[in-house]
């Protein structure tokens, strides 16, 4: 018999259990949450960290949240550094991007230390988008914000539960600052339940195998993550790659990526100054983007932990749009993040197209609609990202109607549930056959979604990019089509927006959400005529355009 505390099989069994625990935390949170953005859209993530706050294992959810939790826990560990500051049963929280929160104030991180005896052996943590945390606009996000103070209540890495007892004043302050206090309370409790379940499992695991073995399993898991990354890194094209890209607002973003056997260096120093509006991101947020693209590029299937990301080095300039300085507003950080993510992707796609597809619709298309439910009299808020078209891959057409690379196990909201919950009508939800994305392999289609408002004085807030600068193609394919939102007024007239804040919409106005087709790959003339015939038959392209682009003879 081998030594049971140190054999590779035991370590592996513990590592499998870490994964199972992160998944269990995810399931618990998803089922208990009150906001549809959490339980349906699954705008959330869970993770297990070591005593120092290094990510050991992550649950499902949004890839963009995987790399957030370690940064939050590290700030908590640093801040509560006196003996006795952290006790068994404590639960901490932060939502402040300038204090470990990474994203924006709506995203509340909840973290719990895992004790065995008086020793912290790990942390469990989760993050989720809360419907309203105060600020100048319903839903807390406003394109008008010029300081973070306008975006809601800041929870600067504080204790929420002390030795198992909720700190009531904190809960009261949180509820008093939210337009949707019941949702906020329910969602925060769902988060607490999730970290508690995770902490219980980890304590049992460490109790069973011993603390030393448990800690060794976590450390070797991270080393494994690093080994996988380094192996894949050696297979990538080496060198320095650069790209400049114009944005919808005319600004130019620049990136330089250097790949070697041991490092993946992302240089974003040469970029515009931070914005006066809320489309800035924290440095941590940009790091998350680099981690995501790195993971997709190396090995999407292996475990994702601190070790996986060790080869990444990020260079930013404080005061730039990619490294905002306090108190810059940051509410729409996600559109800037998805832009920098796409920038890195595009920069490398030309050199590693077998690993990266052509440009996607590439926007969160964050859409916020609210008002009074005509049947219940209660206030409702829709907070949702939109589905769109993905770019073509080598040898295959892109997916239609799927969330951007930022989202993962995210679900759209069924029309039947939306009509009941939100008291509006969904007149249609269909694929958008807009021209674009043609090629040997075509981009997938976006959607067209019509919300008909039932009550006067409702509001629309939206933030879409890739509204002017279109999804990019590769190797002679065609560019995709734009993302935008239209308001079709009852009394006539149609308005088109990409960024809009607190626009008033009234009964029988229709909010039409339109998302784009992804970019194509390869010369359209090389497309299999049988596939073109199918496209025509399915109404994705008119026979006239098929003739023009593909030489389709009918």
């Amino acid at each position, binding site marked *: *018999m*081998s030594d049971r505390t140190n054999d*590779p*099989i035991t370590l*592996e*069994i513990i590592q*499998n*259990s870490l994964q*199972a625990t992160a998944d*269990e935390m995810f*399931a618990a949170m998803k*089922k208990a949450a009150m906001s549809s953005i959490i*339980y*349906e859209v*699954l705008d959330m993530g869970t993770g297990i960290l070591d005593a120092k706050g290094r990510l050991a294992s992550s649950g*499902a*959810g*949004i*890839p963009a949240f995987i790399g957030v939790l370690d940064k939050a826990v590290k700030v908590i560990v640093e801040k509560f550094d006196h003996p006795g500051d952290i006790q068994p049963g404590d639960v901490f929280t932060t939502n402040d991007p300038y204090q470990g929160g990474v994203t924006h104030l709506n995203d509340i991180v909840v973290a719990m230390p895992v004790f065995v005896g008086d020793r912290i052996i790990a942390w469990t943590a989760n993050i989720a988008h809360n419907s309203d945390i105060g600020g100048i606009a319903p839903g807390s996000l406003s394109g008008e914000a010029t300081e973070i103070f306008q975006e809601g209540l800041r929870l600067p890495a504080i204790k929420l539960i002390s030795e198992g007892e909720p700190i009531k004043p904190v809960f009261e302050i949180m509820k008093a600052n939210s337009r949707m206090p*019941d949702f906020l309370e*329910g969602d925060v*409790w*769902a988060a*607490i*339940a999730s970290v508690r*379940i995770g902490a219980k499992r980890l304590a049992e695991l460490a109790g069973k195998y011993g603390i030393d073995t448990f800690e060794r399993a976590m450390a070797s898991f991270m080393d*494994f993550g690093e080994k996988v990354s380094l*192996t894949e890194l050696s297979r990538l094209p080496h060198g320095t790659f650069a790209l400049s890209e114009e944005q919808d607002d005319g600004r130019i973003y620049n990136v330089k990526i250097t790949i070697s056997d041991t490092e993946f260096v992302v240089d974003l120093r040469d970029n515009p100054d931070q914005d006066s509006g809320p489309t800035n991101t924290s440095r941590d947020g940009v790091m998350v983007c680099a981690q995501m693209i790195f*993971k*997709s590029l190396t090995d999407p*299937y292996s475990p994702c932990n601190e070790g996986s990301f060790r080869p990444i080095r990020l260079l930013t300039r404080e005061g730039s749009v990619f490294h905002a300085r306090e108190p810059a507003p940051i509410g729409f950080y996600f559109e800037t993040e998805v832009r920098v993510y796409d920038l890195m992707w595009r920069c490398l796609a030309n050199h590693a197209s077998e690993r*990266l*597809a052509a440009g996607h619709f590439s926007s969160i298309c964050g859409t916020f609609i609210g008002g009074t439910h005509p049947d219940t009299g209660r206030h409702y808020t829709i907070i949702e990202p939109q*589905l769109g078209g993905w770019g073509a891959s080598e040898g*295959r057409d892109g*997916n*239609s*109607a*799927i*969330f951007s690379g930022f*989202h*993962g*196990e*995210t679900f*759209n909201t*069924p*029309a*039947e*549930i939306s*009509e009941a919950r939100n008291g509006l009508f969904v007149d*249609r*939800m*269909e*694929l958008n056959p807009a021209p674009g994305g043609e090629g040997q392999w075509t981009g997938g289609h976006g*959607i067209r979604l*019509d919300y008909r408002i039932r009550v006067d004085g409702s509001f629309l807030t939206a933030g879409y990019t890739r509204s002017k600068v279109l999804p990019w193609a590769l190797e002679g394919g065609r560019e995709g089509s734009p993302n935008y939102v239209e308001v079709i007024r009852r009394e006539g007239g149609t308005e088109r927006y990409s960024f809009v804040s607190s626009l008033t919409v009234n009964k029988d106005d229709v909010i039409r959400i339109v998302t784009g087709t992804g970019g194509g790959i390869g010369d359209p003339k090389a497309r299999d005529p049988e596939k073109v015939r*199918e496209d025509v038959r*399915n*109404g*994705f392209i008119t026979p006239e355009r098929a003739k023009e682009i593909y030489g389709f003879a009918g």
Partner: protein
Amino acid sequence: MAEKTIRVATDVGGTFTDLVCFETGSDSGIARIVTAKSDTTPPNFEEGVLNVLEKGGVDPASVDFLAHGTTVVINALTERKGVKVGLITTEGFRDTLEIARGNRPDFFNLHYEKPKPFVPRYLRRELPGRINYHGEEMTPLDLSALPAILEDFKADGVQAVAVSFLHSYANPAHEQATLAEVRELWPEAAVVASHQITREWREYERTNTAVLSAYVQPIAERYLSRLAGGLKEKGFGKSPYIMQSNCGVDSLEAVSQIPITMVESGPASGFWGAAELGKLIDEPDVLALDIGGTTAKCSLIEDGQVKIMTDYWIERDRTTAGYPIMVPVVDLVEIGNGGGSIAWVDAFGKLHVGPQSAGAVPGPAAYGRGGTEATTTDANLWLGRINRDYFCGGEIEADMAAAEKAIKAVGEKLGVDADEAARGIIRIANNNMVNALKLVSLNRGHDPRDFTLVAFGGGGAMHAVALAQELGVKKVVVPAAASVFSAWGMMMSDLRRDYFVTRLADLKPGAAEGIEGVFAETEARAIRQFEAEGIDASKVKFLRYGKFRYQNQEHTTEVLLDSGKITDDRLPAIEAAFHETYEREYTYRLDAPVEMVGIHLVASAEVGKLTMTRREPTGAAADAVLKGRRKVDYALEGIHEAAIYDGEKLEPGMKFTGPAIVEDPGSTIVVHPGNAVEVDGYGNIRIELK
């Protein structure tokens, strides 16, 4: 000669068609059990059923009750052997089937491929007409375009039509009208509307369910009518009952209309067997584990009740979103981890077991049929847990040289010898199964230590004790004839239908009437259906579950309601029961309003179910059936000399302690050191852990 009752269960699997026959004398109550196996005979599966009856010496004319389980539906789905389907849906929503939910479990993979819809866009057609979520008509249905749509379908070779409209769960009038018109205009086509299958909301899930049901309908109908015809020809005078995914059986006529409900019938009968066994031996809280050749499946049974849900998906895993089927299916977790699962070492020296399987061909290396990869079975053989001289009940001579070579190859990659590699394979396989068992217990707020593990299938008994130890379970039960346990479960099944209906209601005074209304309405619907099949209303038993949540939540928690009319004064107790159930599952409760989202009604009637008879202890000592002793490697507990017992000769009341192995032709029970074993009056083997 005394009167006797003959009950038969036949189960069509991928390779074999199984038969179990119980012949019960009315005076003695003692059952004679016949089992038989013959080849499955695609595509004319009914031939295999008739063959196996003949092989078992069962005269169909003498059979009183026949239950039948089949994988025909799941096979048609996974092998894409269904028919061409046309979909008719609400204007503006023809792409719902393709949009699906937009999710992507494989979230770092930027080459992810979304599952393809079962109906291409050009065969998805729309009709004007809208119902709102209250069930009120907003825009009348306009059928004027229907004839042209059906003509197009015909021209395109469509064989089945699915109809699915928005909010049909609340009011099916538009679907019913369309259904009638399609039948009128095109009587030859198979047609199904979503409300016939489910009355729950979520249009993608409901539409996909209708589409998949239409996709398999002509195939299942043909299969069932041939089966009925073949049995009738041989003199069987009754109608067979068909095993369902909800652990009940249903009449052949009902299943022919909505065959999709058979989709998970295979595992369901085993889990129902576990629930019935638990009731029989007074262990109503059961963790049920079924380990077969390629997968392990588990389910949790609380207080004798299986959990039935409608959140079922095929082909869904960590890398793909799969397809939803919104029918009542026993809540189970299935993992790719069975006797034939292949052990492999990745590029970074990590050992994995499954999900790839060596299958029946070539099978484990020890089959000697050319398999070169080590499987769980090879490791069990190598460690002496399976008798190498009695492999597969003596039918196969174990090729130990091949097993050794395969296990050594794994060991070399790990830097250990064959013994250590085999132990590693068993430990990883066990860990995979422990995690699956946790998913159905801990993840749902249940402590496995409060449950009895019932293990069956070819491999269940081999791993059960090790898994129980890991989970803190104190009792393991291996049923008599564990390898044909699913067939036994089928014979214990009731005619059962689960009705799920979405209906929003709060729990404020005055609400009871509406809640009682939806139960009463659904019960009346159930009774009509049973009566139409000649079952008297007085024979129908109901279980009422409410699905509740805190206001604004989405996911519901199901609570079993006491029988009797729901009145306003009962609402506080119902609310309290919800809080309690919720807190157990989620560790907290809220002071928020509670609302009902829908109901789950179980309607069942006994249709000739088997009654088991207990035998008294014979007084014989277990030593009488001792076959010998051999060294067995228990992995974590070391190597011990184990007593080997002949499972076929065990008698009620026999007792012994581990380390021991019980062997019968279908399975091997691994009893760990210190375990206390007793054979009960039904022939079940009960193992108490220290």
